[in-house]
C-alpha cells in the first residue's frame, strides 16, 4: 500500500508544480466563476479536456493489466463519433431525445463489436496484442472515414451537444461521464473479483490457467471494455465540437493513454494495476498540455518540454534513480528489474 502511495507521490508533485506554474501566466488560474449557469475556469477546462483521456485510459489500464496493449482506441473513438454523427445528421429532428439516444446506442454497439473483434484476435486466435490491435488501428480509421465519406460531419443536435460541451448541475457532462465510468470500473474491479483475476492473468498466464482462471474470457472482456470506453470518449470528442472528424479524432491518443497508465503506476508487463493512478496520469497529461499553451511555449519547443517533464517524472518515480543519484538509500530492490529474483 505504502508502495503505491509512494509511486503516486511524484505525479502528484508534478501536477501541483504545473498548476502553480500556470498562475504566473494565466490570469486567475484557480478562479472558477459561474458563467451562464455553469462553472467556468481553467481548472474546469483541464477536467473537460482530460475526460476522453481518462475514459480511454481506464480501458487501457485493464488491457494492460492482462499484459496486453490496445493501439486501436484512437480509431475506435473516430468510428464511434462518425457513426453517431452520421445517424444524428440524418434525423429529421436532431433534437429528438430518443433518436439521439438510439444513435448513441448504435455507435456504442458498433464499438462493442470492434472490441469483440480485438478480443477475438488476441484471446482466441492468439495474435500478439500489439499487432492484433494495430490491424484495427489502421483499418478502423479507414472505417470511420468510410462512414463520414472523408468529410467532417456536422450535427446540430442540442441533446448530443450536451455530452461533450454541456453541463449538468453546473458541472460539465463529459467530466461527469468520465468520473462515472472510472468509478464503475473501480467498483467492478475491486468489489468483484475481476481485478484479482485480471491481475493474475497479467502476472502469470500459465499459473492462472492452472488455477482455473478463464484467461480467455477475461482477456476478451477487457478488450471489449476498452473499446466501449474509447467509444464513449469518441462521443465526447465529437460532441464537443458538434462534428465528426474521422481523421483527427483520437489521433495518437493511444500513446497518451499508455503514458497515463504508466505514470499511474501500472506496469506494462501486466499484473497489478491502479485505476486511480491512471486517472491522475490522464489529468497530469492534460494539465501539461494546457500549461504548454498558457505558458506560451513556442510550437517548436512543446515536444521538448513534454520530453523533459516525462523524463523528470519517470526518474522521480524510479526507486533505482532515487537510490543511485539522489543518494537516498532505501528500498533496495533486487538488481534484476521485472521478474522474480527472490526465491
Amino acid at each position: 500500500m505504502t508502495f503505491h502511495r509512494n509511486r503516486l507521490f511524484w505525479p502528484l508533485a508534478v501536477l501541483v508544480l504545473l498548476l502553480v506554474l500556470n498562475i504566473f501566466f494565466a490570469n486567475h488560474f484557480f478562479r472558477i466563476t459561474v458563467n451562464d449557469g455553469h462553472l467556468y475556469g481553467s481548472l474546469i477546462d483541464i477536467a473537460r479536456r482530460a475526460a476522453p483521456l481518462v475514459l480511454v485510459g481506464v480501458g487501457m489500464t485493464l488491457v494492460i493489466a492482462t499484459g496486453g496493449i490496445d493501439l486501436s482506441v484512437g480509431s475506435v473513438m473516430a468510428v464511434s463519433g462518425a457513426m453517431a454523427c452520421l445517424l444524428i445528421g440524418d434525423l429529421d429532428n436532431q433534437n429528438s431525445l430518443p433518436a439521439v439516444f438510439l444513435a448513441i446506442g448504435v455507435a456504442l454497439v458498433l464499438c462493442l463489436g470492434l472490441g469483440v473483434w480485438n478480443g477475438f484476435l488476441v484471446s482466441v486466435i492468439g495474435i500478439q496484442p500489439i499487432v492484433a490491435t494495430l490491424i484495427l488501428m489502421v483499418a478502423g480509421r479507414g472505417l470511420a472515414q468510410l462512414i463520414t465519406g472523408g468529410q467532417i460531419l456536422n450535427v446540430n443536435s442540442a441533446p448530443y451537444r450536451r455530452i461533450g460541451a454541456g453541463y449538468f448541475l453546473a458541472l460539465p457532462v463529459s467530466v461527469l461521464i468520465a468520473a462515472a465510468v472510472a468509478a464503475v470500473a473501480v467498483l467492478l474491479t475491486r468489489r468483484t473479483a475481476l481485478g484479482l483475476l485480471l491481475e493474475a492473468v497479467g502476472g502469470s498466464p500459465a499459473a492462472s490457467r492452472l488455477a482455473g482462471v478463464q484467461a480467455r474470457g477475461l482477456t476478451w472482456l477487457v478488450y471489449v471494455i476498452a473499446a466501449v470506453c474509447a467509444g464513449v470518449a469518441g462521443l465526447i470528442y465529437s460532441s464537443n465540437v458538434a462534428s465528426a472528424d474521422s481523421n483527427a479524432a483520437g489521433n495518437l491518443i493511444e500513446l497518451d493513454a499508455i503514458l497515463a497508465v504508466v505514470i499511474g503506476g501500472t506496469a506494462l508487463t501486466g499484473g497489478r494495476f491502479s485505476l486511480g493512478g491512471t486517472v491522475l496520469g490522464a489529468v497530469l497529461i492534460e494539465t501539461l498540455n494546457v500549461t504548454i499553451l498558457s505558458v506560451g511555449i513556442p510550437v517548436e519547443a512543446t515536444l521538448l518540454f513534454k520530453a523533459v517533464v516525462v523524463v523528470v517524472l519517470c526518474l522521480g518515480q524510479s526507486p533505482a534513480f532515487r537510490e543511485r543519484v539522489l543518494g537516498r538509500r532505501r528500498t533496495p530492490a533486487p538488481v534484476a528489474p521485472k521478474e522474480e529474483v527472490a526465491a
Partner: protein
Amino acid sequence: MTETHHQPMDDVELGPGSPSSTIESRGRRVNRQHVPVLATLTLLALMYGLGVVNYEGFSDIQVVLNIFVDNAFLLVVAVGMTFVILTGGIDLSVGAVVALTTTLAATLLHAGWPAGVVLPLMLILGTTLGLSMGAIIHYFRIEPFIATLAGMFLARGLALLINRNSIPIDNGFWVTIAQQRLRFDRGVFISTSVIIALVVVLIAAAVLIWTRFGRCVYAIGGNADSALLMGLPVARTRIAVYGISGFCASLGGVLYSFYTLSGYSLHGNGLELDAIAAVVIGGVLLAGGSGYLFGTVLGVLVLGLIQTILNFQGTLSSWWTRIVVGVLLFAFIVLQRVVTGKRAVTGTR
C-alpha cells in the same frame, strides 16, 4: 511463456541422422522451429503471385526490386528494432531519430559541412541517444516504452527546434549516392541504400547467431533475471541493444535522406510502428527471446508488398486503402497462425 524457439543454424550437425536426437520427435523439432519463417515466406510468395495474376506489369522484376529500394531505410530501422524486441524491450524513438538525423544532416550540409564529417556525426548521435536511453532503462529501471517515448519526444522536438521546414540537400556526395543506381540487364536497378541495408542485415544476422553478444540478447529476452543470475553481462548487453537500435535508426535516417534528399522534422512519422509491425509479422515475439532476423526481412517485405499491391490497384479511395491494408495484414497474420498451428498466447504453456 515463449512458444517459438529458435536454434542457431549450423551446417555441421543438423543433417538427418544427427546423433543428438535421443528421442525421435526431437529430430523433427529442429525443423519445426523454422516453420513460422517458412510459412511467412510461402505466404509472401503467394501474395506476390496474387499480384502477378491480377495486375498488369506486376511481374516486372523491378517491382520486387522497388520494394527493396523503397524500404531500405525501414529495413535498417527494423534490424535495430529486432535486437531491442529480442531482449523483450521496445524502441519508440526510431521514427523521431530518423527525422532528427535527416533534419540535422540537411542543416549541417546546408551550412557547408563536409559529408565526411556529417555522416559519422549522425551515426554517433543516434548511437549515443540509443545508449543513453538504454542506460536509463537499465539502471533506473524505467519501462522501455516510456523511456523511448520520451526519447521520441526529445528527438522530434529537437528536429522541430532546428528547423520546422523541409530542407533540401544538395551536397555532392549525398546527391551522388542518392542517385547512384546499380543497373542490371533489362534496365532493372537497385539503389546504393539497398546494398547498405542488405549488408546491415547480414552483419546483424551473423551477430545474433554467431556471437556471445547475440546469444546474450536472446537470453535476456528469455528471462532477464535468469540471464543475470547466470552471470551474463546483462547491463552491457541491454544498453548496447538500444545503442544498436539508435545506430540503425540514424543509419536509417541517413538512408532516408538519400531517399528523399531532404531533411524534415516530420519525416518518419509513425515509422516506429511500421518497424515493430515488420518485426512481429516476421515471427519475433514481442515478449522477447524468440525469432529470427530473417523473419524481420520478410516482415518488411510483407509491408512493402501490401503497399505495392495498393499502388497497382489504384482505384481505392483513401479510406478503402486503410481498410484494405488492415484486411491484408489480418489475412496474413491469421494465415500465418493457421499454417504454423500456433495456439493462443494466453493460457498456453
